[in-house]
């Protein structure tokens, strides 16, 4: 009997090949998309959970308000970690990371670059339990000048030799480190990825008792019986006790006075597992750019929606197709088939189809994962899916889908009296039609919202591309490594400047685009230290402003003609506003604190530069000052279409100095675009999801129109005999569906507007969502939907009416 069921199932599928393919394909795409997103979401949620004490680890962060500036930093002053351990018995361990760039490392005569280095406290590997391949995590970093490196670095430096005990030289710092441990690569789902961990024991600054300078990522291991919020409540006292005296020394006011002026600085705790998705700290203070819980929610919602769409589609089409089986049900009943056999048969068919879709979905995931990994910058792996538990969930999902899809025909059709079924008196009840209409509306509402979102993301991206950012980012070559030329940097600059393709060169390491590690200082107007404000300081020469095409809106640029410029500064518009200079900034005195001990230096304003974006457009422009002090790094403005030639020339000159260092360059516009890579990739992912969703929705629509055309086969014949034209019949078949699509707009437009408006809030500089975006999204959908059902309708409308009127 089972064999018979499978045989009939198989032949039925073959007979309705196209409908079946549509059905399976739609379901497979839905499941595959949901699986890919599921892998993504699971990965995002897995960050930092692999450390043994993950549940007990918290990060100490700094939040507050100072003269109108919101401070949110993932770093704390150095003493915070060990002070908290001393003060609170529930803090079992405290450890710190001090990220320290990518120093050059020399082993024998080989120079290595590009490895990420951090100082960490000796107990670091007891808190972050990264497994050691060689060495002992408890003692590896006890001594100063010891270092733990990854296996990858070890093989790069030493080949097959035993790395333990080898000495690495850090020539820039004039230090030597002994390798005392080797670990595997830090797992991808960790919020930090360093290649080398040096012992903090040898880093003198780490022991200084400075509570006003930040720069250490501090982590605590709490007693597992303690809620971190209880510890957090006690932190204000610590701030008062330790930071208070130093604020007094630095700013000349007591902590109470400081707070009385509306300022507020506090330490807070953040559970380790929250770091990746729930961090909104200043970019420069994060160890790495993290994820965003919003993305997880958006993707999760898309996954659920597309899965629901595909499942309902599948059920809808299965149900529609099953009504054609009424005769078979009737015959079988007349021949004595019990109801249970018929139910079993439909369920088996539905199960087979679902399983085919499942397998197809897994294949689709396998094919599309590399692409998705590329877009989401992840290393997702299908092997996770093959975990028995996950496979079980998949099977359960499959069974649920097959029950829902096969349940209706199984229980509904098989309950008919045989004669009713035989006479094909079965007709669509109004109820199931309403359900189908609701489904179409739901599907298209989601599709239209996604199309809308895609358009808005595109628009915002092009807004970012074309916005007047206050400087000219094109045709600019950035040579960050020019400090390696040491005394020859100036000579190199002179030689390059002789090239006719160069229009200007400035010597400065401050680049307004890309990742920045700007120096911050505190300034206040005149002697009014109450109005103190942290500000970014650019060390520039007189060529900087013209080279970058910035505009002075008042005063003058630095020059070499006016004697010493060391007490002059140029401020940006935002500084002028915050310092309260209004329109007469020129000549105003500005005080800058140069240490945290109360030392200051006096400047006077000689120019105001038009605000330019030196951070991403997510953030509002902050105050910035420029002082005339040399800093390393070259920025070259070209006036040529032959950028390649110019770069080759620059490399040629560089190599002439024989410093044995590779010539590296970046283009400013590329740096600028990198800042928005995440958004661009997000845009691409959204576009793919939008395409998939509308594709699946259209598959469903196509199936439904096919079904409708067949159901109304006879009606179409009669109408044609009575003189109806082809366009009239097409209209009759399509207008109902098009109406549904239009109704879906009523849901999609507000939904899409709300979601995208929320997304745009993340940008301090953003577009307004315009009315035509809705029109465009609507038109695209209508056209796609019409093309989907138009062809089928045309075919149905143009058939010979005799065919449908011929009796059996």
């Amino acid at each position, binding site marked *: 009997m089972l064999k018979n069921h499978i045989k009939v199932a198989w032949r039925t599928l073959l*007979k309705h090949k196209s409908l079946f393919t549509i059905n399976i394909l739609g379901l497979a795409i839905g499941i595959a998309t949901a699986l890919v997103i599921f892998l993504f979401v699971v990965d995002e949620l897995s960050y930092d959970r692999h450390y043994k004490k993950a549940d007990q680890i918290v990060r100490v962060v700094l939040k507050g308000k100072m003269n109108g500036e919101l401070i949110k930093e993932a770093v704390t002053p150095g003493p915070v970690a060990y002070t908290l351990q001393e003060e609170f018995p529930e803090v079992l361990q405290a450890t710190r990371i001090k990220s320290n760039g990518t120093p050059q490392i020399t082993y024998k005569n080989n120079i290595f670059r590009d490895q990420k280095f951090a100082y960490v406290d000796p107990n670091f590997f007891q808190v972050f339990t990264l497994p050691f391949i060689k060495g002992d995590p408890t003692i590896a970093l006890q001594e100063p000048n010891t270092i733990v490196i990854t296996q990858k670095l070890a093989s790069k430096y030493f080949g097959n030799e035993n790395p333990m005990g080898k000495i690495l030289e850090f020539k820039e710092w004039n230090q030597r480190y002994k390798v005392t441990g080797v670990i595997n690569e830090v797992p991808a789902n960790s919020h930090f990825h360093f290649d080398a961990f040096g012992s903090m024991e040898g880093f003198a600054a780490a022991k200084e008792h400075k509570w006003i300078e930040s720069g250490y990522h501090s982590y605590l291991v709490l007693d597992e019986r303690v809620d971190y919020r209880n510890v957090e409540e006690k932190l204000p006292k610590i701030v008062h006790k330790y930071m208070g005296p130093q604020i007094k020394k630095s700013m000349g006011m007591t902590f109470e006075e400081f707070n009385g002026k509306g300022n507020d600085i506090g330490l807070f705790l953040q559970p380790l597992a929250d770091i990746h998705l729930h961090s909104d700290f200043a970019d420069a203070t994060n160890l790495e750019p993290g994820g965003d819980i919003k993305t997880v929610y958006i993707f999760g919602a898309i996954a659920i929606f597309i899965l629901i769409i595909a499942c309902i589609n599948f059920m809808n089409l299965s149900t529609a197709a099953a009504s054609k089986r009424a005769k078979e049900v009737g015959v079988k009943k007349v021949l*004595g088939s019990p109801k249970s056999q018929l139910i079993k048969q439909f369920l088996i068919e539905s199960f087979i189809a679902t399983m085919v879709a499942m397998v197809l979905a897994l294949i689709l995931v396998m094919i599309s994962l590399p692409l998705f990994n590329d877009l989401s910058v992840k290393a997702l792996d299908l092997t996770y899916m093959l975990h028995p538990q996950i496979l079980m969930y998949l099977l359960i999902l499959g069974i649920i889908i097959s029950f829902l899809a096969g349940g209706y025909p199984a229980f509904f059709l098989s309950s008919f009296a045989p004669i009713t079924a035989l006479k094909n008196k079965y007709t669509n009840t109004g109820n199931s039609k309403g359900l189908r209409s609701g489904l179409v509306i739901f599907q298209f509402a989601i599709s239209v919202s996604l199309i809308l979102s895609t358009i808005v993301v595109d628009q915002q991206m092009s807004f970012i591309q074309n916005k007047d950012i206050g400087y000219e980012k094109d045709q600019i070559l950035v040579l960050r490594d020019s400090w390696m030329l040491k005394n020859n940097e100036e000579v190199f600059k002179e030689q390059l400047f002789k090239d006719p393709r160069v229009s200007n060169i400035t010597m400065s390491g401050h680049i307004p685009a890309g990742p920045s590690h700007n120096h911050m200082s505190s300034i206040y107007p005149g002697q009014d230290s109450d109005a103190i404000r942290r500000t970014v300081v650019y060390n520039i020469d007189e060529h900087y402003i013209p080279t970058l095409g910035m505009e002075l809106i008042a005063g003058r640029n630095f020059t070499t003609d006016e004697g010493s410029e060391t007490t002059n500064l140029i401020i940006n518009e935002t500084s002028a506003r915050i310092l309260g200079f209004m329109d007469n900034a020129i000549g105003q005195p500005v005080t800058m604190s140069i240490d945290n001990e109360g030392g200051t230096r006096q400047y006077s304003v000689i120019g105001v530069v038009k605000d330019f974006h030196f951070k991403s457009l997510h953030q509002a422009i902050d105050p910035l000052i420029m002082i005339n002090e040399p800093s390393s790094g070259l920025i070259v403005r070209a006036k040529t279409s032959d950028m390649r030639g110019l770069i080759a020339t620059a490399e040629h000159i560089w190599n002439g100095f024989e410093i044995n260092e590779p010539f590296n360059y970046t283009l400013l516009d590329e740096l600028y675009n990198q800042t928005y890579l995440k958004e661009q990739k997000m845009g691409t992912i959204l576009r793919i999801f939008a395409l998939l969703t509308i594709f699946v929705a259209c598959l469903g629509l196509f199936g439904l129109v096919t079904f409708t055309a067949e159901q109304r086969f006879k009606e179409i014949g009669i109408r044609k005999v009575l003189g109806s034209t082809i366009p009239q019949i097409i209209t009759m078949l399509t207008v109902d569906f098009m109406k549904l699509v239009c109704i879906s707009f009523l849901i999609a437009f507000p939904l899409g507007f709300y979601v995208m408006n929320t997304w745009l809030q993340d940008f301090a500089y953003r577009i307004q969502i315009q009315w035509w975006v809705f029109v465009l999204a609507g038109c695209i959908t209508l056209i796609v939907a019409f093309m989907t059902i138009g062809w089928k309708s045309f075919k149905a409308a143009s058939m010979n009416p005799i065919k449908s009127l011929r009796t059996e």
Partner: protein
Amino acid sequence: MLLQLKNISKWVHSGGQKVFLLKDINFWVNEGDFISIMGPSGSGKSTLLNIIGMLDDFNEGEYTFLEEKVHSLKEKHRANLYKQYIGFVFQAYHLIDELTVKENLEMPLLYKKHSASERKSLVADMLDRFNIVGKKDLFPSQLSGGQQQLVGVARALIASPKLILADEPTGNLNSKQGEEIMEIFTQLNKDGVTIIQVTHSEKNMAYGSRVINLLDGKIE
């Protein structure tokens, strides 16, 4: 006596009024009868046949089939009863399109707990008897109407029923094919199978031994 109908009535409600499809039908059938039910369109022929075949309900009256009171049987028992004793032949053949001739013939046996080898030999007998061995692997759509009806009759017979119910069995066939089917019915009747057929045609009626004329749901 094979079956007996006593005061059978069936009606539907239409616009608040009872419309009788069958009214006060009384008749009986003996084993070995060959009965033709005649009457114009809408006179209730098919309804009567379906009631006899237990595929349809009636509102009033008593129906006894082989001493069993059909009207008081549960659906499951009723299904067992007709499964065992009744074979159906339809005007539109009603073969399952997805199954081959052989598989269509096998279908009724699947619901009757025959072993695979039994089924095989029964199907082979039937194919032989109706001279359709060569067609056994074809699908219904590959056969002519007459051949399809031949399969339909063979399927009705395969479980050796006592009674064959045929609803206009030749209605979709040309006269030659129709004659063939009627010849087969005559032969079956001689072998002891009871046959009740619904027909429009006087010619087909002539094959039968008894005629029941229906008009507006009543026996004339």
